[in-house]
């Protein structure tokens, strides 16, 4: 069945360093979404990518959707302590359910 692998599972950085997390799918995706969950908080929708090769930016965050629509990345430039949390790229598709993996836990040392 469809699977999305997210790497790394954990990442610890010094404040100011860059950070990237990757999602890789075994099959072509119709779209991909990214969510962020702060420690003790709830998942919050960040962005959705739909088009092949799409790149979207939100301030220091850059989201990419691969040309083959099988992978995606989230890059954070110059991390801040407010970036701490778990980033998820749940598996969606043609139905109305999302399957969340463990995500990537980012910790930032001030």
């Amino acid at each position, binding site marked *: 069945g469809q699977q999305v692998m997210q790497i790394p599972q954990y990442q610890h950085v010094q404040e100011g360093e860059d950070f990237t997390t990757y999602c890789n799918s075994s099959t072509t995706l119709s779209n991909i979404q990214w969510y962020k969950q702060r420690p003790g908080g709830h998942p919050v*929708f960040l962005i959705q990518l739909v088009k092949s090769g799409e790149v979207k930016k939100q301030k220091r965050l850059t989201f990419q959707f691969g040309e083959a629509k099988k992978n995606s990345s989230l890059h954070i430039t110059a991390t801040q302590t407010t970036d701490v949390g778990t980033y998820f790229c749940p598996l969606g598709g043609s139905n109305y*359910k999302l399957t969340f993996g463990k995500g990537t836990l980012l910790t930032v040392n001030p």
Partner: protein
Amino acid sequence: NAGVTQTPKFRILKIGQSMTLQCAQDMNHNYMYWYRQDPGMGLKLIYYSVGAGITDKGEVPNGYNVSRSTTEDFPLRLELAAPSQTSVYFCASSPDFLLAKNIQYFGAGTRLSVL
């Protein structure tokens, strides 16, 4: 709009007790979901609903029940609480997935301990 509201925020149950976790949304979303999240893990789908009167099982439905009598409300019932049900429970809703590609909006969660 308040979005998705979950009550209570915290609860401690004794083994064998029952309780209902409440979830309400004011965004007129058809799709609603219940997830549980254990420490360091992702979210696992318990039950979901595509509209009033329609519910279906997710990945981990055992020990839970749901109902959807209105568009706004989607309560989750635990009949005989067990320690394995200690978790954080999140309710989410989504507008018509054909338009918004199933973007989900989450409540703040209910932290449940069964002792």
